[in-house]
């Protein structure tokens, strides 16, 4: 059959479009990713290893893990509560609430940092109060955690809400008829049903939490070895023209991104299977 299908582009057009897409993604995304690793290992694996095991780098890694370990679980609890309220119930103002949850996505990270300075900084609303009680939020861990929670706020909720809506309420209603309590419903019925979506949201929130730069940069004060997370440490090293060390720390973050993408692709693939098996 040599006649062309009128619903399909010609072979040449298809080939051209595929090549164009590959070239664009290659130029815009793949080359920068490759550059991170090329620069990180520019002076050999020894220099790379020395750069990531240096005390300031290690303390940046520890702080990054700590901030994410506080921010992500808090947003997980919030995400489940928000999804339970929005997906399983009807109430006035639901659409508005959904929009408000999305709000942090459209706020510049720098503005996200600024608002916490205005609240808790030296001249902020609670500044004098904090000073009297000797608590420090800005230029310290609590401020960085708050800014991180703000920027990762919608991630988990918005992955779980559509999934819970899609699954409806029949499983829960059946369990309720059999005498299950509210917590049993949540723990044994609802959460297992949305576990892929939850994991997916946690993955994205975690990547953003560990990689957040603008918001955390504004509230951190850049105290070396104390309030520098990995992205901030990258900036400090880069501005000192210590490029190999900057890219070495950056390569760890790029590795985290690759692991996130791999898990994400795996979950999508897995999830598709589960949905197909259920006859969706």
């Amino acid at each position, binding site marked *: 059959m040599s006649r062309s299908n009128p*619903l399909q*582009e*010609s072979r040449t057009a298809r080939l051209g479009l595929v090549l164009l*897409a*590959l070239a664009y*993604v290659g130029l*815009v995304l793949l*080359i*920068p*990713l490759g*550059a991170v690793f090329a620069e990180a290992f520019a002076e050999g694996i020894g220099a790379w290893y020395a750069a990531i095991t240096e005390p300031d780098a290690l303390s940046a890694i520890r702080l990054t893990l700590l901030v994410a370990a506080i921010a992500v679980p808090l947003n997980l*609890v919030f995400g489940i509560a928000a999804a*339970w*309220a929005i997906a*399983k*119930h009807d*109430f*006035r103002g639901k*659409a508005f*609430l*959904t929009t408000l949850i999305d709000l942090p996505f*459209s*706020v*510049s*990270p*720098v*503005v996200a940092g*600024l*608002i*916490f*300075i*205005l609240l808790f900084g030296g001249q902020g609303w609670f500044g004098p109060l904090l000073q009297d009680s000797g608590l420090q939020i800005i230029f310290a861990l609590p401020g960085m955690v*708050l800014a991180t929670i703000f920027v990762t*706020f919608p991630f988990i909720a*918005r992955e779980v809400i559509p999934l819970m*809506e899609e699954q409806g309420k029949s499983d*829960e209603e059946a369990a*309720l008829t059999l005498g299950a309590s509210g917590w049993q419903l*949540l723990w044994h019925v609802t959460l297992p049903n949305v576990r892929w979506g939850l994991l*997916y949201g946690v993955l*994205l929130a975690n*990547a953003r939490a560990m*990689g*957040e*730069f*603008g918001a955390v*940069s504004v509230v951190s004060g850049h105290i070396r070895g104390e309030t520098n997370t990995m992205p901030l440490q*990258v*900036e400090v090293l880069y501005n000192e023209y210590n*490029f190999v060390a900057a*890219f070495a720390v*950056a390569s760890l*973050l790029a590795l985290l*991104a690759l692991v*996130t*993408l791999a898990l994400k*692709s795996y979950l*999508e693939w897995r*999830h*598709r299977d589960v949905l197909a098996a259920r006859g969706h």
Partner: protein
Amino acid sequence: MSTLTLAARPAPMMRRKRQKSSLPGLPLALGITITWLSLIVLVPLSAIFVKSGSEGWQAFWNAALSDRALAAYRLSFGSALLAAIINAVFGLVVAWVLVRYAFPGKRLLSALVDLPFALPTAVAGIALTAIYAPNGMIGSYLANSGIAVAYRPAGVVVALVFIGLPFVVRTVEPVLAQVSREMEEAAVTLGATRLQTFLWVVLPTIFPALATGFALAFARGAGEYGSVIFIAGNMPYVSEIAPLLIVTQLEEYDYAGATAIGVVMLIVSFAMLFLINALQVWQRRRVA
């Protein structure tokens, strides 16, 4: 599944008749949601508006509309616009190829599109700078033909193209997958060529999604900081983006100035959020 994106908004079930849910736990769940939302988002955001009001209108306008601030808005919004246009064109090609064709490496291409969501912005920033610097991999070629990208306003566009691509692809992709082939068949029966079918049948159907992706990429780009500051050069009036000006003023303890610019950025964010909501309602009607 289209929930995999930051772009696709969950369809709220609002037009249905409101009835009391049979499931327990609404007061507790709603209580946690509203408390957490207020503490983390609403109260802090209101602080910036209260602060900007406390300085008086005149001081606010002077800071928000100073020449340096205006130049920064022009750069931030202008490069975000340009980057979003570039991504709308090429992002549509990428989405089209991912939905319609089978080819080797498709899964990898699809996974790679999400890279900007996962790669920290600072990492993207230093990598792009290394590539486009005059001695970099691409920068050295460009330098030979007399084009400078790094440390120039053009560098801002390069960074924002990187940041914005997945917003367009991930918004258009699920909608393109829903477009009914029957419409295209009908067009062909009526004698339309492939290009005419695309322009007059497919494109109008997916246009709201394309506009949504464009708006999301623009909104993200206008506020972007981490990936831009390394490559931009950061010269006041020339290559200084608005978020950087906020940071600079904070470092100079000019809280009123930083707040004024922050308020302008926030108002634009709210307007974009409103627009994106409207576009998504439009898209749902079009596909339904």
